[in-house]
């Protein structure tokens, strides 16, 4: 069973196009550890500019909330 981990990130992030979220696994030198797999990547966010369909591309799908 996977361990549950909670980690902090900066508050009030407001990122425009071109910025990237990256999920990775590093060793203590900062190098990427080979063999680690990531799945079920979820980014829950506000999209103030609307037109949210454009946020889904490639392997990423968009799941709208119940009020959408």
């Amino acid at each position, binding site marked *: 069973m*996977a*361990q*549950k*981990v*909670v*980690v*902090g*990130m*900066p*508050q*009030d*992030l*407001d*990122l*425009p*196009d*071109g*910025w*990237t*979220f*990256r*999920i*990775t*696994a*590093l*060793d*203590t*030198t*900062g190098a990427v*550890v*080979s*063999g*680690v*797999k*990531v*799945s*079920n*990547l*979820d*980014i*829950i*966010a*506000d*999209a*103030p*500019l609307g*037109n949210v369909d*454009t*946020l*889904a*591309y490639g*392997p*990423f*799908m*968009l*799941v*709208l*909330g119940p*009020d*959408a």
Partner: protein
Amino acid sequence: MTDIAIRATATASVPRDYTIPGAQELLPKVISASLDGSAAATAYIPTLQILEPGGHVMFSAPAQTSYPAGASVDVNWFPGLGVGGTSASSVAVVGTRIEMHASQSINNATNTNLTYDTVAFDTAGMANLGADNRKLTVQVSGLYMVCIERAWQVNATNRRLVGLTQNSLYGSGGSLFADDARLAITGGGQTTNGLATIQQAVVGDFFASGANQDSGVALTSGGGSSEYFSAILLGTL
């Protein structure tokens, strides 16, 4: 404003990127992912990084601890918890300590950049010794406790100096914002310089260290775990 979820369920090797597409803007509320370390080559630290459009990492949010090869974790990144994560029984330390386990030669009367070869810990994502073994690059703006210690080859002649720079290198003419200068110990024994100071820095700044000695000959420094350089985040402003 309605929350949206951008989701990728398929499994892929790390790193896994999501770049905000054109004419869009996101205010993230939570980011979650499952990491499977069953085939990991070594112990690993689950980490969220945020990259600017040029591809440079502007912020790293590593988990508080590393997980052994074979372990799997479900990670949630929430804003405002404190970088590095918290738990009910501990306070996350955000900081980096690098050490010099090999000897470094420092020429007489020469401002010299100090180098490091070992990362003792790096929960702040400040060290990248493969790219530059002199610097600690700030990932979170705030006040830092910056410390350094260096022991010298036994020599009783004249002065030893060790100091800290910010956004410059001592060997290239950079100015020290803190330093420890002292006369060498006589009667045998190593002379050791050490200092601790508090310094403000913003994302992208770097700290570095330098040394100078005027014994008349080249001296070595480093070679033990007491030769270190560290920066610990005290808090944001």
